[in-house]
């Protein structure tokens, strides 16, 4: 019996040995587990840092830009074709925007996004243009004449000249409330902008001037967009209402011009300076036009929800 008791006692001692090692092993296991979590977090952080998560909000801006450009082209097309009345243009723009909504909706759904475009509002205006390639005199062949009076906004004002004679042709925007004038002098090899006593010029080579976009032959002309001694040199900058005049229009021997103003009273603008729609004379002309449109845009994905109004007035100084 005594031997058995000794054996049991020894066994008991055996089973309780290495407790310290066991506790240490558990503690080390816990430390290693903590280390694993930390390594995991670090790897995830590296992964997160390489992700670009702004794709959808960038896409929203791209769609907005696309809708603006597409609608601008629809408005320009409607203004230039079948422009018998404001109602006709409005109907055509409505159809065009419905098409825009349909096509962009299909495109965006392929990208997993919902897009909706609605035609909310519009501003009627008038398009003044000459497309006969003559000089820039009026329908009575007078070189100095007024295109429109008391205009608040003008967009897409372009001059395409193919032959310039000696002398200076001038486009004037005259402030209705004061004697201030914005003047653009065009000569054979130079254009010069004068506004609020400041003058700036650009080289010019018988071709295209976009007054509202500030380009000459498709390239930026600083004189049309700069700020000189704190005075903006842009077309009609700082004027609430202004008249638009041509001086010495016969200096431009051959060319065309076009501009859209936000005055919808076409009959008042169309005085003796312009040719009647079906009447005598070879231009220039005035036709009804849509000046601008306001759209409602909704873009929605699982992560981005973007709703905004979109103002479309192609070629407007903003």
């Amino acid at each position, binding site marked *: 019996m005594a031997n058995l008791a000794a054996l049991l006692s020894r066994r008991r001692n055996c089973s309780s040995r290495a407790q*310290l*090692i066991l*506790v*240490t092993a558990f*503690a*080390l296991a816990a*430390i290693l587990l*903590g*280390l694993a*979590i*930390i390594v995991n*977090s*670090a790897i*995830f*952080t590296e992964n*997160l*840092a390489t*992700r670009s*998560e*702004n794709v*959808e*909000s*960038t896409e*929203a*801006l791209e769609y*907005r830009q696309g809708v603006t450009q597409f609608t601008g082209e629809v408005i320009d097309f409607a203004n230039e074709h079948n422009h018998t009345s404001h109602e006709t243009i409005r109907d055509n723009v409505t159809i065009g925007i419905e098409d825009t909504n349909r096509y962009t909706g299909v495109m965006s759904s392929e990208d997993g996004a919902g897009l909706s475009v609605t035609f909310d509002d519009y501003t009627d205006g008038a398009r003044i243009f000459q497309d006969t390639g003559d000089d820039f005199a009026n329908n009575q062949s007078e070189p100095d004449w007024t295109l429109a009076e008391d205009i608040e906004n003008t967009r897409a004002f372009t001059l395409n000249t193919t032959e310039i004679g000696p002398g200076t042709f001038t486009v004037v925007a005259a402030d209705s409330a004061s004697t201030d004038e914005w003047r653009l002098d065009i000569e054979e090899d130079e254009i010069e902008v004068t506004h609020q006593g400041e003058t700036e010029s650009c080289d010019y080579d018988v071709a295209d001037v976009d007054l509202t976009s500030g380009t000459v032959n498709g390239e930026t002309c600083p004189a049309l967009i700069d700020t000189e001694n704190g005075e903006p040199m842009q077309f009609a900058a700082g004027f609430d209402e202004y008249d638009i005049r041509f001086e010495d229009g016969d200096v431009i021997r051959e060319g065309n011009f076009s501009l859209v103003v936000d005055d919808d009273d076409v009959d008042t603008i169309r005085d003796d300076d312009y040719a009647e729609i079906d009447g005598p004379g070879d231009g220039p002309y005035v036709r009804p036009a849509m000046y601008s449109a*306001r759209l409602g845009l909704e873009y929605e994905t699982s*992560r*981005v*929800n*973007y*709703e*905004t*109004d*979109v*103002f479309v007035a192609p070629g407007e100084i903003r």
Partner: protein
Amino acid sequence: MKSTRAVSRVLGYVLTLSITAVLVSGLLIAGGALIEDQREQVIETELQVIGEQVTSHINAADRLNQSSEGDQKIRISQPFPSDVSGTSYRLTIEEQESPVLRLETNRPEVSQEIPLRNTTAVEQSTTSGGTVVIEYDEDRDAVVIDDA
């Protein structure tokens, strides 16, 4: 002569256990401190990365707002980890002269600040980690953060 002379078995055990305990304690203390140190560093880096991601979304909301007109609604929701290295965290837009996005954890106390360079104003707002919503508040004309 017996080899066990002048040696007490009990004393031997005590010495062995004491030395083992001291060594093990040293190992655990050093290991624990190392883990804690590494954890703080990882939390710091992770908060920095999450903060920059959230800031890029705040900038995106700013861009969307800058290119918008009239009535508008801007809402960007983005899932992020709900905790960093096992501890929860908080995001706060601090509306001050130079606004910042602050991310902080309580245990351990770690915080990171990311400067916000928005054109649109930001307003004081707080949310916890997880899915973060960045919204433009039209009434207050400011960008805020919220939870989903």
